[in-house]
């Protein structure tokens, strides 16, 4: 059935995608997102620090990166031809590219980091148009699992800064600052009302900075370092780019993971903006993933690590109920401006460990729950249960037992060295394996001269329940079959039994109706009022037109008095 032109806003969304919030709300939300997104600056920062680059160059590179985030956020929201989903779905640097980028930095320095980043972006853009055809390989439970794992591993990565080997023990003032930061965010989110709830993350960050100043975590020495940074400057983008085939695998996997994460994030945006959301709209997902790939290409060109749509940011929009596209434009404008104001990235770089970790833990909570929701958006049968459970356990094993990665052969290390990549690859492999024997068929024959629609309805309901098919799709198939038989019975010559064969394979529901008799027409245009009223033939034409719109695809075949109508429904 055709999608309604306008979508119904869910009750928890105060300002939807097309809404224009008051200017203060828009700007404050934009700042809040910038506050959340800049946390991920830690990834390029850690890659650049690994190369022991001079601090001025690092600040300049971060400025370039910030500029990329602004352009990427704008591209995603603005929609340039087929590129961009149109959603308020800001970009940020991704944890997914972190390990691969660090490896490239150690192997071939900045030129290799940027060269491989372009490669990953191109790959993502190439994969994007085929996502629709790859639905069977990337079902919601896998994209949900990826999002869940990103949330979980993000939280663990944050805690590693506190408890990991090599991490300095937390001082009492750090615990206090961390507790104050996350406590403020959580308290305002849970018990706060209006603006306090809406700006919980930003207020929490400000509280964290103030507490850091009071406790001495940010001292005058650090502030002086920011003071000497110039107010205005051009980002450094003058580097060579190189490519190394040996690094193609980890970057390809990272690219695959980011395209899936982008698809998942766009799915959250769709869901967040549509109270009647039923299934992912692949058109906007493809456009969103294309924009995500283009942004990573841009990152490689300008001189940054790979970007990805920010699930915490979308999670924040869901938490605050502000999903307006105008906020994305404000976020883009702030980032672009920040790209030319090096003092601001330098100031943001001051964020002490407990503030960064607290903000990370707060935002990943929303990612994990969104992942869970997507995973469980379909009935969890035995196949999906095993895929989700085993992949999660495998991913967690990598985090708990570092020996798995350490003892793996160099060829396997890109896969088993990352909990996210291993969980994803295992889920994809299990899903492909479980496709075997998934298609189920049932037939139903009507011998009566006058077909009983209740029996047809009961046939579809019984089979739908048995197959775990979505009720809305079963309803469409049931109605389509009843309408077809009704039209044939009334106005088309026929004799003998009518046979209904329905086959279901989780992503497709195909219904074939066969009978001895004449063919029904399926016009693309609705018959005119005069045609419908003029004769019973008008009702047949209207039936054909409605059936064409009811199914995702209709095919009519006829030979030697035998007619067959095939309805295809995307599940």
């Amino acid at each position, binding site marked *: *059935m*055709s999608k309604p032109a306008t979508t119904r806003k869910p009750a928890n969304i105060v300002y939807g995608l097309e809404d224009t919030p008051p200017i203060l709300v828009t700007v404050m939300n934009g700042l809040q997102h910038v506050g959340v997104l800049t946390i991920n600056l830690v990834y390029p920062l850690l890659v650049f620090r690994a190369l022991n680059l001079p601090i001025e160059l690092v600040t300049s590179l971060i400025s370039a990166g910030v500029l990329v985030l602004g352009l990427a956020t704008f591209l995603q929201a603005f929609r340039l031809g087929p590129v961009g989903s149109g959603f308020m779905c800001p970009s940020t640097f991704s944890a997914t590219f972190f390990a691969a980028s660090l490896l490239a930095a150690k192997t071939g320095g900045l030129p290799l980091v940027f060269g491989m980043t372009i490669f990953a972006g191109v790959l993502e853009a190439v994969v994007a148009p085929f996502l629709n055809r790859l639905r069977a390989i990337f079902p919601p439970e896998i994209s949900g699992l990826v999002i869940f794992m990103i949330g979980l591993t993000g939280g663990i990565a944050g805690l590693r800064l506190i408890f990991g080997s090599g991490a300095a023990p937390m001082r009492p003032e750090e615990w206090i600052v961390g507790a104050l930061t996350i406590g403020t965010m959580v308290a305002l989110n849970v018990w706060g009302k209006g603006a306090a709830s809406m700006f919980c993350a930003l207020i929490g960050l400000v509280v964290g900075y103030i507490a850091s100043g009071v406790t001495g975590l940010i001292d005058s020495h650090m502030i002086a370092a920011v003071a000497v940074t110039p107010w205005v400057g051009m980002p450094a983008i003058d580097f060579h780019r190189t490519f190394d085939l040996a690094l193609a695998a980890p970057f390809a996997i990272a690219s695959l993971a980011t395209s899936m994460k982008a698809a998942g994030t766009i799915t959250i945006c769709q869901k967040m903006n549509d109270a009647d959301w039923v299934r992912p709209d692949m058109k906007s997902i493809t456009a969103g993933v294309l924009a995500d790939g283009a942004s990573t290409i841009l990152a490689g060109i300008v001189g940054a690590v790979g970007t990805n749509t920010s699930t915490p940011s979308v999670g924040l929009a869901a938490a605050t109920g502000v999903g307006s596209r105008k906020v994305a434009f404000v976020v883009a404008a702030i980032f672009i401006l920040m790209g030319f104001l090096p003092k601001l990235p330098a100031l943001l770089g001051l964020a002490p460990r407990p503030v960064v970790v607290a903000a990370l833990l707060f935002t990943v909570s929303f990612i994990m729950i969104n992942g869970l929701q997507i995973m469980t958006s379909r009935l969890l049968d035995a196949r999906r249960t095993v895929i989700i459970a085993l992949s999660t356990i495998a991913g967690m094993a990598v985090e708990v037992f570092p020996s798995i990665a350490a003892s793996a052969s160099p060829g396997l290390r890109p896969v088993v060295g990352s909990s996210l990549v291993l969980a994803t690859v295992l889920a994809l492999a299990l899903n492909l394996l479980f496709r075997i024997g998934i298609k189920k068929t049932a037939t139903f024959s009507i011998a009566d001269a006058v077909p009983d629609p*209740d029996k047809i309805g009961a046939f579809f309901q019984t089979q739908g329940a048995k197959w775990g098919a979505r009720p809305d799709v079963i309803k469409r198939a049931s109605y389509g079959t009843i309408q077809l038989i009704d039209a044939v019975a009334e106005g088309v010559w026929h004799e003998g039994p009518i046979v209904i064969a329905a086959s279901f394979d989780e992503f497709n529901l195909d219904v074939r109706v066969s009978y001895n008799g004449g063919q029904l027409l399926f016009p693309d245009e609705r018959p005119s009022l005069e045609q419908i*009223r003029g004769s019973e033939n008008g009702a047949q034409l209207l*039936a054909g037109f409605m059936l064409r719109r009811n199914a995702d695809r209709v095919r009519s075949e006829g030979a030697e008095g035998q007619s067959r109508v095939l309805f295809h429904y995307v599940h």
Partner: protein
Amino acid sequence: MATNNVLSIGEIREAGVCVVTLAGRIDSTNANDVMNRLKSLIAAGEKSIVVDLGGVIYLTSAAFRALLVATDEAERTAAKFALCGLTGHVRELFEMGGLLELFTIHASRQEAVVQGGGK
């Protein structure tokens, strides 16, 4: 289940408006019953008719034709003719057929009666 789906046609008068309530499924086997009932009301001189589809499970094209023929009859005799109670699946079917704009449709029976079956 079968008995619940059988078409029932009711008729009540509210504030001078003849409200025809339809319930169950309407298809080629009973669409003529609906059409004939509506035609006979119009022929009897009824000037304000509201058809309440609130209890309808689904309609096939034969039912839509019946309603369109009745609309035409009403226009000829300058009678007001409107529909109400289009919710859920039934409304989707009207959308699927691109038929919403061919009828006068009210959000509720109360509103339809206040308008006397007109716009």
